[in-house]
């Protein structure tokens, strides 16, 4: 990318010399420069009376068109111009230095401002040129970005390693699996067999073994049935603690 050569062509719009919208100007210096440049006035010899008159006429009613602060900036410049005009009218005194022209400070400010105004155009050109070079990611993602849009640190191998360790599914589509009918009696047998091997079994553990709800329900009913018969005892140490299933005293079935 090359920086474009400084462009100087757009500083002055000469066609609307006296029809001026204040809003278009970047403050009083900009307006003053416009008046001077658009009329081909020598900036080092500004006809201050004439320019002051034009300036004051243009900012008439400025208080109603701009904010208080912006209006103040234009009014302050008007005051400066009027003061310079008055100084110019005073007879020159011999004790003044030759080059002490009342306009010199204003000219210095105008030239300095003009430089930066030109630079702003150069920067605008550079900006437009740069904007034509697009970064990667210029085209918006199709999916609106999520809260946690960070890319995942996860390889397919890692993913598959976990996938392979999963329990095998009983059928291909578990959520549509036909339920094998199961009876309370079958579950009764299972409870009793489990309690033959162990003195006690956590109730929860036993319920968990069933992949479908019907099994869990039948297990539960079986446990209730056995408890009623006195074949098992249920014990819980504290509220919401583990519910233990023990062999009952009247274990006549085994």
């Amino acid at each position, binding site marked *: 990318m090359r920086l474009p050569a400084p462009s100087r062509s757009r500083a002055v719009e000469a066609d609307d010399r006296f029809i001026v919208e204040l809003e278009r100007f970047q403050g009083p210096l900009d307006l003053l420069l416009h008046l001077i440049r658009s009329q081909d006035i020598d900036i080092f010899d500004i006809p201050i009376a004439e320019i002051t008159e034009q300036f004051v006429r243009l900012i008439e009613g400025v208080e109603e068109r701009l904010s208080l602060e912006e209006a103040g900036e234009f009014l302050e410049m008007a005051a400066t111009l009027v003061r310079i005009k008055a100084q110019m009218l005073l007879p020159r005194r011999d004790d003044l230095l030759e080059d002490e022209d009342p306009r010199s400070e204003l000219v210095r400010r105008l030239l300095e401002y003009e430089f930066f105004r030109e630079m702003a155009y150069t920067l605008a050109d550079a900006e437009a040129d740069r904007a034509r070079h*697009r970064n990667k990611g210029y085209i918006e993602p199709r999916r609106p970005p999520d809260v946690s849009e960070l890319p995942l640190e996860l390889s397919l191998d890692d993913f598959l390693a976990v996938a392979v360790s999963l329990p095998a599914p009983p059928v291909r589509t578990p959520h549509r699996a036909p339920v094998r009918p199961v009876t309370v009696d079958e579950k009764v047998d299972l409870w009793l067999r489990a309690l033959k091997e162990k003195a006690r079994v956590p109730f929860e553990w036993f319920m968990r073994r069933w992949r479908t709800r019907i099994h869990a329900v039948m297990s539960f009913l079986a446990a209730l049935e056995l408890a009623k018969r006195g074949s098992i005892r249920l014990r819980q140490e504290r509220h919401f603690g583990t519910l233990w299933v023990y062999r009952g005293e009247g274990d006549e079935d085994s």
Partner: protein
Amino acid sequence: MKATRIVEAVLFASETPLAPAEIARASGDLSAKEVEQAIAELCQEYEEEDRAFQIYPLGDGYQILSRPEYAPYLERFDSVTRTNKLSRAALETLAIIAYRQPVSRLDIEDLRGVNAAGVLRNLQERGLIEVVDRAEGLGRPLLYGTTGRFLDHFGLRSLEDLPRPEELQIALRSGE
């Protein structure tokens, strides 16, 4: 302007995969078919010139990405966005969903034996899974499936590309 170059500019500027039809939007006289041809041409060019990047098919689109063999060099940079890791629980859940979709929360919880609500929310926020349907029956539970982003992440073209459970064992063993 040559179609190949326009397609190249668009692929370069995009951060996500773009489908040929989308790329064709760049110019009034560019068809999805021409885009496909241009992509094939570019792929060959990059191959021949041994570029550090290549065009990869992802989901139903294409994306220019740096070649995987350069990954170690890129890891050292801060400006390359940092990544985040999935927990073991999230991984297991994702695996279940990938292979069993559409699948309900209850099914997942049955398989993993623990509550899955938090993990599911997390995966959904990351855009890896989404609700694809509702099951019949009591409460009409939500059914989850994987997203296009899931495919993107693993560089898969479709779910068919996932190794089948039978193949998995072998694939992993040979990788060791």
